[in-house]
């Protein structure tokens, strides 16, 4: 094993499926989804979550290993969670899928130029530079990122961090939800279960 890669080997992605779930932006949702996958034995390749275009709703992009479970079961089980509003399987869609990675690579005055050349081929940005290391930031599909990682390996990778895939269907089709809640209910839903701000009275029972 090449010690500089910390044993990192790109995984085969033969049967990976991209599933997008629109979920309530509430405490515990990530745990519910993660615990569902664990319990049912569905393998997650990556899971990415963040705010969406809809207030109170987050968009989760999950890459599932289709060998571990039929994607249909994954979808149905996700739908059973009350906080999951919509699930879209993008496996058979024409999608744009991207991931961002930051790679901290060992380098010195002698070989820094080589690294910069490699970075420019991959259209990676240099976001930090120091005497003995450099951070490259690259956006692309997994193959492209794997390719850059492979090129950096001989120099020695000090640290690698990847965001996991996010994806969108090409064209006008979306995974959005068109169903606003009544204002009164939305107000409670958006605070439901969240910590109250400020000092709370202390009492021990």
């Amino acid at each position, binding site marked *: 094993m090449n010690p500089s890669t910390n044993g990192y080997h790109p995984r085969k992605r033969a049967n990976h499926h991209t599933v997008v779930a629109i979920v309530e932006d509430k405490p515990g949702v990530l745990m*519910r989804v993660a615990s569902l996958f664990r319990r049912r034995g569905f393998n997650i390749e990556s899971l990415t979550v963040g705010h969406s275009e809809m207030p109170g709703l987050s968009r989760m992009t999950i890459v599932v290993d289709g060998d571990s479970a039929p994607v249909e079961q994954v979808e149905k089980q996700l*739908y059973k969670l*009350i906080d999951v509003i919509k699930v879209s399987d993008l496996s058979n869609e024409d999608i744009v899928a991207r991931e961002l990675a930051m790679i901290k690579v060992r380098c010195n005055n002698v070989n820094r130029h080589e690294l910069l050349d490699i970075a420019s081929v991959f259209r990676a940005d240099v976001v930090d530079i120091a005497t003995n290391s450099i951070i490259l930031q690259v956006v692309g599909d997994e193959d492209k990122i794997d390719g850059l990682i492979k090129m950096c390996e001989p120099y020695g990778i000090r640290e690698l961090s990847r965001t996991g895939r996010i994806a969108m269907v090409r064209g006008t089709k979306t995974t959005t939800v068109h169903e606003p809640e009544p204002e*009164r209910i939305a107000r409670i839903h958006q605070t439901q279960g969240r910590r109250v701000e400020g000092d709370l009275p202390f009492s021990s029972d």
Partner: protein
Amino acid sequence: MARMTGAQMVLECLQREGVEVIFGYPGGVVLPLYDTLPQYPGIRHILVRHEQGAAHMADGYARASGRMGVCLGTSGPGATNLVTGICTAWMDSVPVFALTGNVSRALLGKDGFQEADITGITHSITKHNYLVMRPEEIPLTIREAAHICRTGRPGPVLVDIPKDVFQESAEFDWPERVHLRGYRPTYEGHAGMIRRAAELIDQARRPIIIAGHGVIWSDAQEELVALAEKAEIPVITTFLGIGAFPEAHRLSYGWLGMHGMFYANMAADNADLVIGVGMRFDDRAMGRFKDFNPGVKIIHIDIDPAEIGKNFPTAVPIVGSAKNVLPRLTEHVREAKHPEWLQWIDQVREEHPSLHIRESRRMLPQYVVRTLYEETEGNATIVTGVGQHQMWAGQHYFYKRPRQLISSGGLGTMGFELPGAIGAQVALPEAEVWAICGDGGFQMTMQELAVVVDENLPLKIAIFNNGYLGMVRQWQQLFYDRNFVAVAMTQPDFCKIADAYGIRAIRVETKAEVAPAIREARAYPGPILLDFMIDQEENVWPMVPAGAALSETIEAPAEELAR
């Protein structure tokens, strides 16, 4: 709108949801709620002796009545003691509403005294759960939780409320409607799928209906009978589906599974079309999946889309409630007769009767159940624990109506019998309820005898006492080369235990005493315990050995029948 404390809101909401009984146990953080209880005389609180009992009672109450059962525990151990009961309800899709207190908000996450992350713990065994952080969230939360609990495929929910949220006041704002974007159960059933299913039924030469718990929960017994009669389809049930189809009906062929009737297993295994209604093709029912009836076509009707295709590929999936789907299916199918197919099953039944009880001087447990059936004319509500006695109670009592047999099927929770029966008796105060208990399971929850006395319930308790963990002993005998380890139990004197609680008890030691004892128990107006000293080494037959296929069902070996 009125200003109320969180505790008042909780009780006000439960009352508006139609809750009449809470099975609970007090403790530090739920004291504000208990303090408020007297203001709501419409809600009857039943004090249990262990929170597990509270959850099982809420469960038994729900299964017997079809209504939501409510249990209540304090934080920490109170909440964790509910877990077994919540999981029991979860596996069997029973609407149990669990309410727990938690430490005050300032202490949450700080490992305060008696803090347990009960919402985290119960994520995977509830339909949904809530941690309520503000009193103004209470009305919407309880309304949503009760809605989720009762609708669609029913199931447990949990609402966890910190102590200071019970104490804080806010405006009470009752939402008339529930609006959940992520929860829309499908009741109707797809018209095209129903037509396709009808076509398959019309073409089938050996169709069979397997009816499950869902038929009972959607109250669709009549609709099921109508379909079976119109197309002359034999009906078998799952263990939890017992009662979904009247067992005296000419098209009834018992129930299938590990200890199901031989002919039911063979019918399922030789059918060319299986119509699964409100059931989930569980491993205990279907045997080894890959060898179940190769070539069979499956129509699967269930309200939970995730059940369809989970264990078996389905030819026609219909997502909807049995109550709605069955009549529409009946409308579309042609009237038909299947004399050859019925004859075939009848013949198997004649050759392998399964439910025949042999002549014996011993007190056979099957005989006790059958005598109970005869004495009660098949009208009693039976609640069981888990193990051999459960299987005998399923086999040798014949059930007429839904909700007549109440038992922990999916989770297989020993100790369910007594609290489950208490819940059922509370729901049906006029009914004759028998708790059929294992001698092992009874000791897991027997402290609830105190509740029987407190509430003056006329419960009949029958202990099947063989001094063994019988089902485990049976497995050790059959599959572990008679290496009996940790199954023989020194039992206490159950009659003295009953006596200590002030409950009348009779020990039944011979076969001749069985019927008189049952008659005496029935004639006695109060609670009574019968300690049946049954034959010690009787096994449950037929049996699909662990990991075997339904076609490999074995019957009682000759040497056992000669005993």
